[in-house]
């Protein structure tokens, strides 16, 4: 099991009030799954995503990633896990504005301690696979929204993580560009990666093969998506 979550709680203290953002979540995700986590705002999906991404730790309960207990880790150990195991794709892209596409993609490798030539080569390779081989020296403000998100996807992939964690990846894009990004995720998944989408948009969630619905800090339903909306025109699924 790649991800094993048992009885997960996350409680925030807001003023003198306790907010139970997660209130007993159990969730297992296997390698090479394509999961969408859905729910309205306040349902706890963002909190769950933060914990899945090792940005946050649970107040109570267990989160094991590849058998490692995340809840007991120090900040620096969490940083290491994020670097090696997690590839983030954010709604607002979160690229460094002053760095070009190539450098943005290199960044996880910088913190992984890779040598300069090695990370250069790897970053170029990944940028080429997302179709930005000719945009490597462009800064984010010289790229379109869709291109920026593809840079972010390349950055998420560059260190070969166990999980691609995408938070509303099409939220800031028009629908046509959004579809392109969903094609990219489909391809990533077909290449054997584990993809977790966090979204409140049913259209986006329907691309996933499994849909987890959250409400009030608990999992409301966890179902296999019977009719995944494949954005790829007619190519048969590689894993089938």
């Amino acid at each position, binding site marked *: 099991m790649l991800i094993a979550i048992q009885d997960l709680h996350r409680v925030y203290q807001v003023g003198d009030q306790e907010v139970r953002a997660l209130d007993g979540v159990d969730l297992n995700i296997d390698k090479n799954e394509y999961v969408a986590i859905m729910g309205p705002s306040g349902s706890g999906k963002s909190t769950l995503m933060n914990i899945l*991404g090792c*940005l946050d730790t649970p107040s109570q309960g267990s989160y094991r990633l590849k058998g490692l207990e995340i809840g007991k880790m120090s900040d620096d150990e969490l*940083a*290491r896990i994020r670097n090696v195991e997690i590839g*983030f794709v954010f709604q607002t892209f979160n690229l460094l504005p*002053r760095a070009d596409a190539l450098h943005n993609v290199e960044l996880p490798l*910088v*913190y*992984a301690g890779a040598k300069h030539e090695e990370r250069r080569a790897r970053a170029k390779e990944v940028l080429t696979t997302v179709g930005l081989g000719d945009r490597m020296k462009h800064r984010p403000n010289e790229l379109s929204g869709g291109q920026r998100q593809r840079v972010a996807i390349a*950055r998420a992939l560059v260190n070969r993580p166990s999980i691609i964690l995408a938070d509303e990846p099409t939220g800031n894009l028009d629908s046509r560009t959004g579809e392109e990004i969903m094609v990219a995720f489909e391809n990533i998944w077909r290449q054997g990666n584990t993809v977790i989408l966090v979204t409140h948009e049913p259209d986006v969630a329907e691309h996933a093969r499994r849909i987890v619905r959250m409400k009030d800090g608990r999992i409301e339903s966890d179902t296999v998506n019977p009719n995944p909306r494949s954005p790829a025109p007619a190519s048969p699924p590689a894993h089938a």
Partner: protein
Amino acid sequence: MNLRESVGIALGGIRANKLRSFLTLLGTIIGVASVIAVVSFVEGMNKFVTDKLLNAGANVFVVDKYGFIGSEEAFEAARRRPDVTLDDADDLRLGIRNASMVVGEAEGNTSVHYRDHVLKGVSVHGRGAGYDVVDDIAIGEGRHLTEFDDRRREPVCVIGPEVAEELFANVDPIGHRIRIGVQDFEVVGLTQAKGKLFGITQDRFVTIPVRTFQKFFQERGSFSIAVKSDDESSLPLAEQEARNIMRARRHQRPGQPDLFGITTSETWLELYHKLTGGIFIVTIGVAAISLLVGGIVIMNIMLVSVTERTREIGIRKALGARRHDILAQFLVESTTLSLAGGVIGILLGAGLALGVGAVSPLPAAVSLPAVLLGVIMSTGVGVFFGSYPAVRAARLDPIDALRHE
């Protein structure tokens, strides 16, 4: 790690906002520049002083009424001492066995006339015979003053080259009569040029026999007695002999403080060291304040930078940057910033020192230790004042940082 990147970000920031960077770095620049300039000057001066001041008046001490006066009380007490007379000088000359020369001296200042040429504010030196050895003065033309001139109170004088040039222009001054104050004197000698000491000319003077000086300029009042010992090792002996003779002449009891003063070049050296020590302390104060202010400004700008780039920090953390990665990044930035200020300060300080050294007689020597000191100081400021912002950046929570607008 990403050292090059952090240095690049810092330099890029400086380039992108030159005025702000300049203002940010002003304190550091002033602090480092002042230290470099002063260290350069003091080092140059040290060399100069040991070269000139000490060698010129080597093994000479001066006996006079006041000696080295350090306070108003000391001056009041010294005022009541008996005058030092030319008879004292004669007795010292006869009595000190370790002295090669004893010369009675007096100083004045007046205008000098030759025909319709007038030279105002000329130093008038009254000197006993042998002054040329004590004052290290070489004759250029004519002759020195003699014992005979002095005993007969002759109205003769030896003049410095500046006086000669300004009064006589192209005429040979030897044998001409000039008026010093209200008295006519015959020029018997012209000295060789000595140049300047601390920017003050040593060539604008007239020297007359000390008894002639007594006759025309100073019937009463105290004289100085310059004593030159045989060599360096006999200087303390000569000084002790002089003290014994002077005390005996004043009928002083044992234990009573001297009723006269003795000043050696040692005294001047001490004063010089006190003076430069004072300059050093003031400079350290100025530099410390400048660097403190400069450091606070750098800290402030780094805090602004951390706030502005909170989201960037969040992104970096999400991608796997550990605390010390972020800490190092911001420390490198603040240090690059302050080091840039340091380099500007070093150039400015060195330029100042060399510039003043070029247009004035004040010597300056920019030394490697001074430059290293500047580099260390500015680096220290960057590390010290960059720490707090860097620690704040490193401690940011990645989720909060990513949410930051």
